[in-house]
Every structure is written in structure tokens, then in C-alpha cells.
């Protein structure tokens, strides 16, 4: 996903001078998901280490507030109990 905001002024002359390859990205697709699951299965990445906080969905405002203030890293929300 991309982020919003004001356009940024950057001198791209270096792209030419240094023959830099410039790539963008948006979202993901099946091939990337398959590879991601492979990395998880092989234990080559640690996603749980990136979870800083877990909260019930009822406390969503606290979780969004943390993200907005740049506190913690990944906040997970747990849905309301199913009856």
C-alpha cells in the first residue's frame, strides 16, 4: 500500500549519472504470497518478533493511537468473541 501526503522534491539526476534502476511496488500477488509462506515455514523470518502489542478490537482507538504516535511496531487486534 502507498502512503499519502505532499509530493516530495528530489533531484533525480543521480538516477542517470549512476545508471540506477528505480522500482516501485504496490501490494502483492500470489507468487509473493507463496514465497512468503515458504519463508515462514522454513523459519527464515521471525514475524512474531515484530508484534509489539496485541489488543481486543474493542480497544482499537488505543491501537490506532499507538500507530499514529509511532509507538511500538505492529499492533494486532483480536475480534470480539463469537457467540
Amino acid at each position, binding site marked *: 500500500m502507498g502512503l499519502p*501526503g*505532499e509530493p*516530495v522534491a528530489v533531484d533525480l539526476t543521480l538516477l542517470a549519472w549512476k545508471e540506477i534502476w528505480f522500482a516501485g*511496488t504496490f501490494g502483492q500477488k500470489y507468487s509473493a504470497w507463496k514465497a512468503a*509462506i515458504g519463508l515462514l515455514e522454513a523459519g527464515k523470518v521471525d514475524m512474531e518478533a515484530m508484534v509489539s502489542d496485541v489488543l481486543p*478490537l474493542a480497544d482499537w482507538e488505543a491501537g490506532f493511537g499507538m500507530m499514529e504516535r509511532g509507538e511500538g*511496531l505492529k*499492533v494486532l487486534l483480536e475480534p470480539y468473541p463469537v457467540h
Partner: protein
Amino acid sequence: MKGLLKTAKGPGNMAIQDVDEPSPGPGQVRVRVKWAGICGTDVHIALGEYFYYFLPVFLGHEFAGEVDEIGEGVEGVSVGDRVAVEPTKSACGKCLHCGQGNYNRCEERDIAGVVSHGAFTNYVITRSASLHKLPDSVSFKAAALTEPLAVCVHGLCEQCRLSEGDTVLVVGPGTIGLCCAQVAMAHGARVIVAGTSRDRSQLALAERLGAFQTVNVEEDDLEKSVSELTSGVGVDMAVEAVGGAAPSRVCLEAVRKGGRYFRWGSRVSRWRWT
């Protein structure tokens, strides 16, 4: 079921609301959400800053759970399957991009938590093709981060041809930056992670995860570090995972001739660095 609904454009307009539990149609499944991650995109939608979302919508597109109901005609999926779920609920299947497997570029794509109801609730209805069964060793909490991990795999490996032995500079140690660092390390790259003083704990985490070097740009000389580590040549790949002009300049200067510069679709974010 209760979910976190964005009810109108603009800042705020968020509320927990009750809706009827949905049922899967033909070719669809119902996933019972276990955990769902808050992404920067969710925060930007909440603040009314994001440029693309539909209303009303339950937010949340990073999630894992269990298959709970199966629609007509779905094969290869069982109730109780543990799954990570792509946010893509459907794509047109007819355009140039869909034809090439690049449905992330499809103009008609339905995206959970952006175009239609997402995962900050109990159940999500989606196409069976968007499910990825989880190995037993992978927890639901870890699996809830498969989406940002896949985003980074797509960016680094598919868009930017990450290679074993690359020296990769990651600027911005948030979730995406640290996922990129982990993907790069998993592929045998040497990774430098750069951040600011407010990123101290994330830089420490990057070290624990195996980063070759971390640099606080407010205290250390990143240019010198890059030069020393690459014999003055520059890094093979610079990954910019933070908004603002300064990180773009840092990346363009750090990358070697013929190197790769990879950037998210960000302009200026609240993680401003000047």
C-alpha cells in the same frame, strides 16, 4: 457480528458497528478472523488522509484465521483449515495485468478493508484462491503479518531482483522496513538498517534479527558506514521505507552505480525526516 467501520470520509468517522454475519457465495469461503494487524494504511484511512477507499467499510487487510464456511463449488479447502488470507477478494481476470498474474495492478480489484469489508471483525468472505494454508509451525499471530511480508517479497524479489550476496540498505525500520530487512537476510544479503533516534528500539530489533549494521543517522555517519562496508562502491540496493525527501536523497547517494533503488509509493508521511 461487530466490526470497526469507517462510516464517512474525513478524519474520524470510525465506530464499532453490528452487522449480520455474512455467508459465502459460489466460489467463496468464510474465514473466521483470529488476528488482524493495524497497517499504516488503516491509520491513514482513519485520519481521512488516504486517497482510495470505499464506504462504509470495515477496515483491516492483514489477517489470518480459520476457514469457517465453504461456498458452492469450492474445492481443496476444508472447514477448520488454518489460513493466511490475501487482501485481494477478487480481480477482473480479463485485463492485461490479470492475464500476466499481476492482479495487484488490476483496476477492478476488490481489496479487503479498502474496497469492501475487511478483517477488523469476526468473518471475512473471500475467494478460495486467496487462501494460503498455514504450516503447523506458523502461529496465527505470525501469519497475520504474511501480507506485509508478501509486500516485501514482491518489492525486493519480484520488482527489484534481490540477489544472494547483495549489500542492502534499508532506510526506515518500521514494519515494512524490518520485513524488507528480514527478506533480504533470508536471501543471503548483508543488510544495513538506518533510522533516527525515535527508532532506537526498532534498530535494536533489527540487530537481534541479524542486521549486519544499524545506523542512527542523527548520531552516526551513514555515508561513512556505507563507504566502509562497500569499499567506497555503494550498496547494491537501497530500500526506502519511510516518507520524505531526506531518505530519498540518502538512498540515491548510498546506492552504487548500476544499483537498484526501491521505494514505496510514499510521499511525505508522519514519519517525516528532514
